[in-house]
């Protein structure tokens, strides 16, 4: 066969193969009735409103089937106690009802407050970068989700998260984390923690809209994020955050 004829035939076959393979591609459409393009979600947390009742933690566990044991959390509340001398102590608040009557001593306390925490839904998420199988990703509306059918439970993301927001689900053996209650927000409901918060310490909304409770919160308060030096660009912002909070 002549070299020129072979090359022209080979190229034409390759081109037609590309066209044919195009037919195998499956069309990917957005889920019905909800357009993620119009949204970009974020949360605001007002430290001076949190009363540390833990209703958000309870509601989150109920709504999202988070195991009831006290070391699996999608959201949790920390109690900071800054003493006159010595180290600042941080405790996860105790959810057991028999502890609700406990009266804390206020000796030597300079300042004490509660800090609700959850996944910061970073714009630059370290957990997504480290996943070896691409099981965790950012949706168009800015929420970081985990594909639990793809996750192999290697725990890289749990290690990589600087906020400790992920845990390994003991039954599924896959990484699990806050989804901003994705099934609720896509139906126009508030995340469960925001819904039940008795003192409006948590504000949920679209980060871009200024005529919304979140927009107002952002305009009226001096905002902080956790660990800003890591450039993770969290979408959860805090007002009234003490410098001691890590």
């Amino acid at each position, binding site marked *: 066969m002549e070299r020129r004829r072979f090359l022209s035939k080979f190229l034409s076959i390759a081109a037609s193969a590309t066209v044919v393979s195009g037919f195998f591609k*499956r069309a990917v459409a957005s889920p019905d009735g909800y357009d993620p393009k119009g949204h970009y979600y974020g949360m605001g947390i007002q430290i001076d409103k*949190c009363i540390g009742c833990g*209703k958000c933690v309870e509601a989150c566990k109920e*709504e999202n089937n988070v195991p009831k044991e006290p070391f699996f959390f999608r959201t949790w509340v920390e109690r900071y106690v800054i003493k006159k001398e010595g180290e600042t102590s941080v405790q996860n608040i105790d959810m057991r009802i028999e502890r609700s009557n406990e009266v804390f001593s206020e000796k030597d306390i300079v300042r004490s407050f509660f800090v609700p925490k959850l996944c910061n839904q970073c714009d630059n998420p370290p957990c997504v970068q480290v996943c070896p199988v691409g099981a965790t990703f950012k949706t168009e509306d800015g929420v970081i989700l985990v594909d639990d059918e793809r996750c192999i439970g290697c725990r890289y993301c749990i290690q990589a998260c600087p906020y400790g927001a992920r845990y390994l689900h003991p039954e599924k053996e896959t990484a699990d984390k806050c989804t901003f209650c994705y*099934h*609720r927000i*896509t139906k126009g409901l508030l995340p469960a923690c925001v819904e*039940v918060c*008795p*003192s409006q310490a948590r504000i949920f909304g679209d980060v871009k809209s200024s005529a919304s409770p979140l927009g107002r919160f952002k305009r009226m308060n001096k905002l902080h994020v956790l660990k800003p030096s890591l450039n993770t660009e969290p979408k959860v912002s805090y007002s009234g955050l003490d410098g001691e909070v890590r």
Partner: protein
Amino acid sequence: MKSFLQKMPDALKRVLAVFVLVAGTAVLVRAVLPASLTDSRLHIKTTVEREMAHPVRYAGSEACADCHEEYKVKQGGYHKNLSCETCHGAAKEHSENPSDLKPKLPRMREFCAGCHTYNPSRPSGFPQVNPAAHNPRKVCIECHNPHDPKPTRTPRECSACHAEIARTKELSPHVQLECTTCHTVPQDHKLIPRSVRATIPSERSFCGKCHSKESGRKEAPKVDILTHGEKYLCWQCHYPHMPEVQ
């Protein structure tokens, strides 16, 4: 056929083998393997769909307003910002099947104590009691209507919320001064204490009204208001509610 293969140059055979390998892999990836393993857009889509299909447990308090009159009572009282489900628990199932599935009715003391037990970490101004001293063993809802909670008697002005300051002031030389001597308190401060604040003095001359040498107040200790304490404001060294010399 055999002669055809023999006639074919070796180089062409190798190229053909590589081509078959590439085409075979393409067919395997595009057609044989399940799409969820190959197309990342598809796995993102299925994960998003799975998240969105997750059942909703908390209905949101708008759902309660249709049937329950207590909702209106609640909207007029201090619990107006509480979602019904903060106390009554997740009630989506109840909203779909109102007669059979009833939400919980927390009646024990411990339940209210979860939010209202005194805790130095809670924001000041939030109503808190010591459950051991506050009518022990009496059920909260005997005296307070949970949908419109009020103190059973009108609080003694400032000390109802600022009890610690009131106690401190009682032991100090300023015991005779009313709070309003130094603070102007708008009426709305009693209703929305955080949004409408009482004023605090901002100048040295305010303290000077009693404590400067020119002042007519005989009993107040006198200093030269222009030179005493140099550049500092009075309350940077003296706590006004307990103004001992430091």
